[in-house]
């Protein structure tokens, strides 16, 4: 691409910040933790925290750099996007990782900053920034999956509080969460306009959580039951009936974190399948993978991954050059899902029966991980708006195709 190089490039204004970040990280990141990622996650419980890990979380929490671009007033880092990129580069350089994560950071925080009242922001944002509070999502119900607006959990107006009754499902990390942001029905006569966005304490009387065991053997999701749960009125975000608008905005944050964020980054940085395949299957006289059919499919997948990486980069550059919202963002979730699943399918195929081990000494750690990764990966094209729902969105919102009359 043609770039315009300034004849006398001035000193990068970010250099000062880079020096500051480097010095702070050197003073605060325990080097023993380098590359030992133990970030807060939506789908994993809080493990035992070592002293180093606690110190690192508290340091980042106090500095606000776990949520670098959030406003300083609410405990964020107050950094520009460019500064946040520099911070990420400096952290990557020394193997430092962000200990602050989970749904509060990825989805709920940005939404509350946009729609919450001043009091709600003061109450809820700082504990997220410090990594002290875990949030979970109360959206899906047994009868409201892809047709989310069909949700039936009801919040009855009782003067100074709501009385909530109903059942949520697929509550990620519900068994470990402190609080839940939920879509509830406040009006049964209107579908989308009858939905409100409510914040519920998970330890309130009447909240019951049951983990769901998945095909991978893990239980990252729960069923959550609400029976006569009292929720104060000040926990309503926005107005009654505004929940669908706010809830959809939150899903946009979810989608961008599912596609452009960590999981894809890890995918692009993972051990190349070609290397794993050479190790398990061997090569021919010319150094090519011995199984020509497998090789051809690995190359297709590899190309898909590269094309996706270039598309993520293009979307970021286009957004930066403010050519308006890039149409590419809407397809990212589907491509990310297909690549994730195809990689796992190829990996277990490469390993043969060894790629299907469940547990025990007869399998390597890599093989056992692969089995679980493959099974867990089937969720990627279902959660956060299934592949079919994303295709509906592309067809209707971007291509202008019509609803059935």
């Amino acid at each position, binding site marked *: 691409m043609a770039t315009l190089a300034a004849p006398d490039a001035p000193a990068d204004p970010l250099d000062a910040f880079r020096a500051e970040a480097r010095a702070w990280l050197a003073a605060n990141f325990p080097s023993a933790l380098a590359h030992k990622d133990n970030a807060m996650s939506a789908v994993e419980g809080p493990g035992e925290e070592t002293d180093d890990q606690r110190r690192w979380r508290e340091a980042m929490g106090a500095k606000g750099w776990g949520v670098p671009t959030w406003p300083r007033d609410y405990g964020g880092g107050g950094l520009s996007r460019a500064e946040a990129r520099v911070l990420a580069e400096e952290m990557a350089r020394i193997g430092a990782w962000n200990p602050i994560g989970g749904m509060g950071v990825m989805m709920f925080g940005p939404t509350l900053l946009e729609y919450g009242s001043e009091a709600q922001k003061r109450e809820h944002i700082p504990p997220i920034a410090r990594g002290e509070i875990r949030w979970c999502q109360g959206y899906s119900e047994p009868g409201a999956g892809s047709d989310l607006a069909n949700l039936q959990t009801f919040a009855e107006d009782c003067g100074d509080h709501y009385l909530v009754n109903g059942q949520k499902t697929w509550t990620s990390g519900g068994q470990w969460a402190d609080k839940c942001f939920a879509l509830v029905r406040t009006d049964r006569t209107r579908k989308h306009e009858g939905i409100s966005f409510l914040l519920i304490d998970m330890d309130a009387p009447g909240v019951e959580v049951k983990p769901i065991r998945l095909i991978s053997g893990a239980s990252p999701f729960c069923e959550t039951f609400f029976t006569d749960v009292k929720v104060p009125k000040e926990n309503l975000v926005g107005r009654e009936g505004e929940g669908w608008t706010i809830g959809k905005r939150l899903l946009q944050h979810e989608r961008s974190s599912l596609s452009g964020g960590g999981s894809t980054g890890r995918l692009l940085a993972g051990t190349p399948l070609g290397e794993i395949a050479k190790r398990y299957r061997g090569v021919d006289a010319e150094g090519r993978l011995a199984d020509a059919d497998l090789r051809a499919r690995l190359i297709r997948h590899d190309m898909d991954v590269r094309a996706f990486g270039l598309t993520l980069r*293009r979307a970021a*550059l286009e957004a930066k050059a403010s050519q308006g919202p890039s149409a590419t963002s809407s397809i990212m979730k589907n491509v990310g899902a297909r690549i994730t699943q195809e990689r796992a399918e190829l990996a277990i195929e490469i390993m043969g029966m060894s790629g299907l081990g469940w547990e025990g000494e007869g399998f390597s750690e890599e093989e056992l991980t692969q089995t679980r990764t493959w099974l867990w990966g089937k969720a990627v094209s279902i959660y956060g708006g299934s592949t079919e729902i994303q295709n509906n969105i592309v067809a209707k919102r971007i291509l202008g195709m019509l609803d059935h009359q």
Partner: protein
Amino acid sequence: MAVLTEDQTMLRDMAQSWTDKESPVAAFRAVRDAAPPAGFDPAVWAEVGQMGWPGIVVPEADGGAGMGYLSLGLVLEQLGRTLTATPLAATAAAASAIAMGEDAEARAAWLPRIAAGEAIVALAVDEGPLHDPDALDTVVADGRLTGTKMFVAEGDGAQAFVVAAADGLYLVAGDAAVSRTPRRMADSRSHADVRFDAAPAVRLGDKALTAAICDRAAALVTAEMLGLAGQAFDDTNAYLKTRVQFGQPLSTFQALQHRMAKMFTELELMRSVVEGALEAIDAGRSDVAQAVSLAKAVGGETTKLVSREMVQLHGGIGMTDEHHAGFYLKRAAVLEAMWGNAAWHRDRFGRLAGY
């Protein structure tokens, strides 16, 4: 769309407005019906020359604009949208061979004329129906080149040829000891078999130059494919909104919506790899071969998907010569095969990646 400079944006807008007004797909139909000997309308080529497009990749010192491959790709994408027949892509790749080559006289003699739109030069590499630049029988002895090249794009109207011999790349000018046999192909464009019988040849460079020029030719083809596939998709989307069956526009049927969403997704990925290859060439990156193979393989598959779906989703009307869907289908298939099909580029990509 890549982030463009002001000059590039102007160039793209000019190309778009010109093809819309002066060279819609009806113009290609007229060329197809008139079947001019060179495979394009000379008046159109003269206009292309006046707009300076043949000089986009010619260095400024040699009379060109020196704007690079991403810039030329913007123009070829627009020409591809309406299947505009010109020898622009072939001549540009040949011009790069001369510009990157080792012969100063050839540079001085040909590049200013190419940039001015006064010379058409074709790139002659393959000797069979499949791209195979590592198995060439063409030889040069005492400055004279002998061999037969097949399916040379724009070979009917070219005044000179950049020819790949077993030991490198040469320039053959004029008609002395050159004989051409036109190939009538499905896309109604110029392709010719060209026989060189001890033709006087100027050496441009070694096999590395041949490989670099093949990559540039392939990258330019992907830019044309991007426009072709994009327009095929847009026309199909528009048709589905107007065609009514079962009392509904076809675009209301979810089965079709999801096929269109899939194609849209693939087109977005294709744009990224095509621009990625053109940018890699402009930046002189060391992974040009990989970037081009990625673009030609992914772009070829997507062009195939969209052009075939264009016919299927148009139903019976798409099967008729009266409709232009067939033009897109036929040109798409030729572009897919040129300079290495998807399978050839996948194999090369795998070898370059070490497996």
